[in-house]
């Protein structure tokens, strides 16, 4: 098992290296001179040139690249052009808000999606099945920004139960709508996924054995069927959490949620390259870590899997 973890960590490093290379290349190819931004719109070409040199942007590509990689390894993600502050601390400062939203989003996905999936699987072909499938279609197809705006309009303006976006110092009513928007789309997906997995599991022999013992349907579902569905679900959930943690840009933008996603969007518009690259790397780290965590979680869920 230890060897497996070490192997996975090595893989993580490799992937992150790849991500770093790609982000660097993209950042390099983005048109526009960041020095301009740094200097301000009224600066003279001379000042821009000085700043250009100061930022080290006139050095050869490979030199910039090596310098960059070296610093990343030391967790120095550079300085934000816009804020004149180190990138990593800036990201870490906004990260808790994203984390809160991410966890809440996953929570909604599970709370809404799983019961629907179970309902649909235990009554295949019935009216319930149809209704739940329509629900999943709608939530899967609805773009998050549209859904978010509709929620804001209906529940923030027309019937003013919820605030119109923002963080509100962490008060729960501010989290509700963004989490709902984030989670509903995923809920539809989970409902379908669970339905499919359960429809595969329920006819199986060991379910028949459980029924033959006189076990109640509830216990059959929760003790026998769902644990077998868990590997599939956990994989997906883990990846989702990782993805959400990396910054759910659209939701954060619609709801003005002060997380790393919004920060990254702003950084892109500001051509704040170091901040963008920092967020990408940070996000990649989270996704990759979530991946590894899920794989390790397998060994606890499915006793047949051992590394």
């Amino acid at each position, binding site marked *: 098992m230890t060897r497996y973890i070490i192997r996975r960590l090595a893989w993580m490093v490799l992937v992150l290296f790849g991500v770093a290379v790609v982000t660097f290349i993209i950042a390099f190819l983005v048109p526009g001179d960041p020095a301009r931004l740094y200097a301000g719109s009224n600066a003279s070409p001379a000042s821009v040139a000085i700043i250009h040199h100061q930022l080290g942007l006139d050095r050869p590509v490979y030199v910039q690249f090596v310098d960059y990689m070296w610093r990343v390894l030391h967790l120095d993600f550079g300085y934000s052009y816009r804020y004149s502050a180190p990138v990593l601390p800036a990201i870490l400062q906004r990260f808790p808000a994203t984390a809160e939203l991410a966890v809440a989003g996953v929570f909604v996905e599970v709370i809404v999606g799983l019961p629907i999936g179970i309902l649909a699987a235990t009554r295949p072909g019935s009216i319930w099945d149809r209704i739940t499938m329509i629900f999943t279609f709608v939530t899967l197809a609805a773009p998050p920004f549209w859904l978010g705006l509709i929620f804001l309009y209906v529940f923030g303006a027309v019937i003013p139960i919820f605030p119109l976006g923002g963080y509100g110092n962490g008060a729960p009513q501010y989290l509700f709508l963004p989490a709902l928007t984030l989670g509903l789309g995923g809920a539809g997906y989970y409902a379908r996924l669970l339905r499919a997995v359960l429809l595969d599991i329920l006819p199986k022999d*060991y379910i*028949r054995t459980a029924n033959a013992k006189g076990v109640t349907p509830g216990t059959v579902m929760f003790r026998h069927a769902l644990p077998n569905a868990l590997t599939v679900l956990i994989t997906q959930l883990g990846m989702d959490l990782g993805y959400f943690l990396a910054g759910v840009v659209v939701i954060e933008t619609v709801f003005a949620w002060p997380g790393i996603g919004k920060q990254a969007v702003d950084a892109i518009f500001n051509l704040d390259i170091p901040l963008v690259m920092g967020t990408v790397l940070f996000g990649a780290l989270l996704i990759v870590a979530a991946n590894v965590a899920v794989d390790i979680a397998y060994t606890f869920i499915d006793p*047949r899997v051992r590394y």
Partner: protein
Amino acid sequence: MPDGIIKAVDGVSFDLYPGESLGIVGESGSGKSVTALSLLRLVPHPGRIVSGEVLFRNQDLLQMTDQEIREIRGRDIAMIFQDPQSSLNPVLRTGFQVDEAMRAHGKSKADARARTIELLTKVRIPAAESRVKDYPHQLSGGMRQRAMIAMGLANAPSILLADEPTTALDVTVQAQILELLADLNRELGTAIVMITHNMGVVAGLCSRVMVMYAGQIVEEGPVEQIFENPQHPYTWSLLKSIPRVDALRHERLRSIQGMAPDLADPPAGCRFHPRCPFRIEECFTKEPKLLDVAPNQRAACWVTMDRARREMGADTLIDIHPGAGSGVRPGEEI
């Protein structure tokens, strides 16, 4: 695939006496498993029981509420299945699964666990105390099946339905399991219904046997009698097709020509007639009923082997094919 209703079990009726060991024999698709599953209302969707009754202790199981039938399952009538690898839940420990058979019927966790260890020992699983913590994939095939038997017997049921419990196992393990079942039948007085396609298993374990074909019972009676003097051509053919150690090397293996019928559209008359060596004209059009052919023995056949031997030289036939004895070939008018 054309739509249609598949009558997996058509007009099956039988009695089971306390402590008896009844064998249900037939090929795949004969309806033997479905018959057993029907007794406990475990027929999988979209199948269902259309009509009939299952009388157990003067109550019709088919009329019971879901709650009532759940109480019967695993406690008064238990069922064990063919492939213990797939019939045991892979993510739950073996001990838990055996405990569950008892906990589902009111036993406490501690009592159930104590009894589980007793049962596993009784079914000859060594080191039962440490085995309870194992997952099914950590046990061998024979041990898994023994665990299933333990699960089935946990509440000392009156009837144990065993659906091909040895088919998925090695021959030597098969013998051990059958021996175990025989001992348990003797000691505990549990009636056993042994479903199998293997006549040898029936011969070793059962006192009575029911032969099924295409969803119907074609013959039933005491095991020795049936084996010595089968009256239905199907039973006779089955017995004839068992390879013999003392057969001469050049003798070919015998099989029954043709295939089991499509249950969505079974043959008219006797369902076996397309494959029967001794069919006569009735067989093509009229469905035979189960009638007494010997003391305690019944068969559903217009001809019966007695007549086939007397009039058609059944014992001396060399090339056994449909209509071989009677000379009635398909399409022939009589």
